[in-house]
C-alpha cells in the first residue's frame, strides 16, 4: 500500500505476523531442536527447549547404523529420475498444445488433468499385481515409472502455461528465418522457456520426493525411498525420539531448501497459472 502505516500499527502487525508464522513453523523447529538432543533430554518432562548437552550423535548414528544412506539415495534417484523422464515426454506435448492448438486441445488438457482425479487406490491393485509379476515391484525403475505417470499431467500443465506465455510470433519468425522444427525448439523455444522448465522440474522433484502412497504400496525395503522408510518407522515409544527427529530432518531438509528457492514459482506452478 502506498501510504505509510503508523509506526505503532506497523509494530503491532509485525508482532502478530511473526507470532503466527512461528506457531506454524514451530513443529519443524521443534523437530530440528529434538534431533540435536540426547535421547534422555528429548523425552524429558517438563520439555527442555534448550538442551544442556547438544549433540550430533543422532545424525551420526542414523547415517552409519541404519540403511539410511540407501533410502536417501533411492529418494534422489526416484524423484529426479521420474521428473526428467516426465519432462522428456511432456515438453514436446506441451509445445504442441501451446503453439499448435486444435479444436480438441482444451478437452485433451482437461482429460489429462482428470487422470489426476482418479483415486490411486483404484489403479493400485492391478499395478501391484503387474509390478509383482514383471519384477518391477520394489525396484527403483518401477517407482520412477509410477511417479512419472502420476505427475505427468501436472508437468504437462505447468509447461503448457509457461509455453503459452511465449508469443507465437517469435516461433513463426524462426520459421520464416529458415529454422526447422528441431532448430526452432533448440535455439528459440527452449532457451526462452528455460526458467519455466526449471521451476517445473523443481516442483516435480518436490512432489515426487514427498510422495507417500506408491512408495509405500510398491516397495518393501530394497527400493524404498525416505517417505516409505519414515512411514514404516515403528512407534518409537519414547526411546528413539532424537534419532527419529534426526532421520526426519535429513529427509526433509534437501526439499525444504529446494522449496524455499522455488517458492516464487510455486504458486504459479501449482495453480497452473491461474494465480500469479
Amino acid at each position: 500500500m502506498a501510504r505509510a502505516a503508523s509506526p505503532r500499527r506497523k509494530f503491532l502487525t509485525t508482532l502478530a505476523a511473526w507470532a503466527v508464522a512461528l506457531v506454524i513453523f514451530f513443529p519443524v523447529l521443534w523437530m530440528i531442536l529434538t534431533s540435536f538432543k540426547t535421547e534422555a533430554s528429548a523425552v524429558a518432562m517438563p520439555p527442555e527447549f534448550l538442551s544442556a548437552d547438544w549433540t550430533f550423535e543422532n545424525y551420526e548414528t542414523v547415517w552409519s547404523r541404519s540403511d539410511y544412506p540407501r533410502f536417501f539415495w533411492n529418494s534422489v534417484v526416484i524423484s529426479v529420475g521420474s521428473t526428467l523422464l516426465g519432462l522428456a515426454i511432456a515438453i514436446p506435448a506441451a509445445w504442441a498444445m501451446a503453439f499448435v492448438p486444435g479444436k480438441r486441445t482444451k478437452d485433451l488438457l482437461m482429460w489429462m488433468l482428470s487422470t489426476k482425479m482418479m483415486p490411486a487406490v483404484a489403479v493400485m491393485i492391478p499395478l501391484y499385481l503387474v509390478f509383482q509379476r514383471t519384477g518391477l515391484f520394489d525396484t527403483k525403475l518401477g517407482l520412477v515409472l509410477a511417479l512419472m505417470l502420476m505427475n505427468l499431467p501436472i508437468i504437462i500443465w505447468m509447461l503448457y502455461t509457461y509455453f503459452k506465455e511465449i508469443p507465437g510470433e517469435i516461433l513463426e519468425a524462426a520459421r520464416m528465418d529458415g529454422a526447422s522444427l528441431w532448430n526452432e525448439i533448440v535455439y528459440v523455444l527452449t532457451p526462452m522457456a528455460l526458467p519455466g522448465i526449471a521451476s517445473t522440474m523443481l516442483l516435480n522433484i518436490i512432489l515426487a520426493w514427498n510422495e507417500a502412497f506408491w512408495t509405500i504400496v510398491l516397495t518393501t525395503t530394497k527400493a524404498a525411498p525416505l517417505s516409505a522408510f519414515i512411514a514404516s518407522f515403528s512407534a518409537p515409544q519414547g526411546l528413539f525420539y532424537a534419532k527419529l527427529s534426526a532421520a526426519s530432518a535429513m529427509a526433509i531438509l534437501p526439499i525444504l531448501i529446494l522449496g524455499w528457492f522455488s517458492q516464487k514459482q510455486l504458486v504459479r506452478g501449482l495453480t497452473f497459472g491461474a494465480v500469479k
Partner: protein
Amino acid sequence: MGKIQLTQVRKSFGEVDVIPGIDLSIEDGEFVVFVGPSGCGKSTLLRLIAGLEDTSSGTIAIDGKDATHLPPAKRGLAMVFQSYALYPHMSVRKNIAFPLKMAGMSEAEQAARVERAAKVLNLTSYLDRRPGQLSGGQRQRVAIGRAIVREPSAFLFDEPLSNLDAALRVGMRQEITELHQSLKTTMIYVTHDQVEAMTMADKIVVLNAGRVEQVGSPLELYHRPQNLFVAGFIGSPKMNFIEGAEAAKHGAATIGVRPEHLDIVAGGPWQGTVGLTEHLGSDTYLKVTLDSGEGVTVRAPGEVAVRHGDRVALAPQAAKIHRFGADGKALA
C-alpha cells in the same frame, strides 16, 4: 526478383470463409500496401503469402514458380512482425545473424552481412545488447535488419509500426520508404492506417471482408474510388455522403464530397449550423449540421472565424462530387 502472383486464393477456417477467393499480382520491386479495417483478412492474406498458413485452394506463385505448398523458409521471403518477434535471449548481433546461421552460412560471411545491415540501420553500437535493452524504434530496426540480411526476394511487413508512438511512426515510415528506394525489392505491407498506405505505397490493395474492393495507386484511390467503401476508407477526414433528394439532383443514390472540397461561400446551396470546430492552425475542421438534417465535415484552409451555433452556407466543388448508384458502385 520478387514477382508474386495469387490466383483464386481461398482460405477458410472451418465453415468461415475468411478469404473467399482473391486474384492479385504484385510486380517485382513494387511497394504494395494491403489496407482495410480490422478483420478484413489482410493479415491472413499476408500469412498465406508467407506460408505460415495453408491455402484452402488456389495457387501462390513466386517468381513464376508455384510456391503454394512450400514451407515458409523455402519461399525466399522475409517478414517483419507486429510485435517484432525478436529472440529475447539473443544479442542483436545473433538475432540478425539467425537466418544466416539457419541457412548454414560461414561465420565470416555472417559477420560481414550483419555489419553491413547494422550500418544501414544505424545499429552498429547496439549489436551486443539484448532486445530488452532497446527502445521500440531500435527493436523495429533490428527486426528489419534480420529481414534484410537474407536478401529475400520480397519483404512482408505485418502492421510493423502499430506499437510505436506517433512521432516515431512518422520517422520509421520514412526509413522504410527510403529502404525500399535503395533496395528496390518487392515489399508487401499490411496496415489498417490509411495514412500509412497513402504515404508509402506504389500500389494500394483495399480489402474488406476478405474481398479486394479496389487496387490502384494512392491518388487513383483518392480521386476515383470505385465504390462507397473505398471512398469512405481513403482520405482523412472521411468523405461526406449525402443521400436522398440532394443526391437525386445529381442522378445518383448517394453523392460523396470530401471535406476539403466543400467551400464556405455566402449564398452557397447548402445551409447549416456550425457544431464542433477544431482549429489545427493550418486547417480548420467544422462539423456542420445541414438544414436537411445531415451532418457534414468541412476542412477549410487556414483559420476560419466561425463559432459554435453560427450559420454558414456551403458549396461543393462541382468537379469533385463523387456519384454512387444504389448498389454502392461509383457511377461513371
